[in-house]
């Protein structure tokens, strides 16, 4: 289902005020980032929220901005996020055509050492500082994680700093393995003992 349509459906109507923060983040994983950016909600223990709190209750604790305005902001933010995503076949195609595409891996070191997309770079602080300079403005930056859940935050961070060439790989390396390169082993994560 189109994610924008999904969030628009759930956030329309009077029942939207009763949506829990857990459900909101389920239908829109970038909700916390969007709320923090505009309303300073959800960043830390003093401005955070619990999954079972309703959106209305959370807004009431934060100067109670108009619900309609907040919902419109969430929908618009979701649309921006969608625009920042790139499907694996498109990224692969652009690389194949010779375009400069940097695949940036933000997963854990264990995942990186277990499997990776050929040609990808492991993201650390030094690389981030380098990308923030002129180097990062050359070519397309495609961040990826395991399933495409947190790489959008990385892309949004760079986008927010003027890197309009930052993208998130939709579905992560798992989608790449399914749609582009079946030689990459798929995996799941467990807590290490």
């Amino acid at each position, binding site marked *: 289902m189109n994610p924008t349509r999904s969030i628009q459906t759930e956030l329309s109507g009077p029942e939207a005020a009763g949506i829990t923060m857990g459900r909101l983040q389920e239908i829109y994983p970038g909700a916390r980032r969007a709320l923090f*950016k505009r309303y300073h909600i959800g960043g830390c223990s003093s401005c955070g929220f619990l999954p079972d709190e309703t959106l209305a209750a959370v807004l009431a604790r934060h*100067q109670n901005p108009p619900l309609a305005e907040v919902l419109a902001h969430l929908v618009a933010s979701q649309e921006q996020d969608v625009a920042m995503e790139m499907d694996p076949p498109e990224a692969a195609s652009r690389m194949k055509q010779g375009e400069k595409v940097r695949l940036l891996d933000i997963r854990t070191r264990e995942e990186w050492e277990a499997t990776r997309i050929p040609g990808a770079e492991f993201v650390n602080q030094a690389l981030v500082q380098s990308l923030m300079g002129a180097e990062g403005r050359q070519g397309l930056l495609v961040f990826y994680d395991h399933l495409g859940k947190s790489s959008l935050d990385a892309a*949004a961070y760079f986008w927010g700093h003027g890197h309009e060439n930052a993208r998130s790989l939709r579905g992560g390396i798992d989608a790449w393995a399914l749609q582009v390169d079946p030689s990459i082993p798929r995996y799941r994560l467990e807590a290490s003992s």
Partner: protein
Amino acid sequence: MSSELESKIASTLGRLENMGEMSDADAVGTVGNADCGDMLRVWIKFKEENGRKVIDRASFQSFGCETAIAAAHLAMALIKGKSPAEALALQGEEFAAELGPLPPTRIHCTQLVEGALRSALSEGQVAPAGATAPARAEPDPPMPGLSDALARNETGTGGVKVVFLKPGETAS
């Protein structure tokens, strides 16, 4: 947030300048709360003017809220041409004066800017005018979204075990 404040912030964000790392900075300052997401780093370049050292250029990086970013942008312009002492004498609310009165929940956004400048301009951080950027031994600031990933990548492990899937298994 009032519509007037929101409008002023939007206007400020629409003309952002001085963002990003300055490769030839003379001073660097970092401040912020990684948990809250308000992290700010500033770079400052000095010059000699009529026998006194003044701020020639200043730039910043931030992943704070829009208010923090707007305040940082205004501060970078405000301190230009000031000596380190004059810049240090500025108060948090002065940086965001153009935005008008801030609600209580946003006051710390300007304090963040003040703290970052204090970090950059405090004794020991400032190299003589004309010197290259000082090498910093401290770690780079973590950032929301990237913070966890970067922190664990620096320390070596993410505390997870990778289990390869068998046919028919799902990754999530």
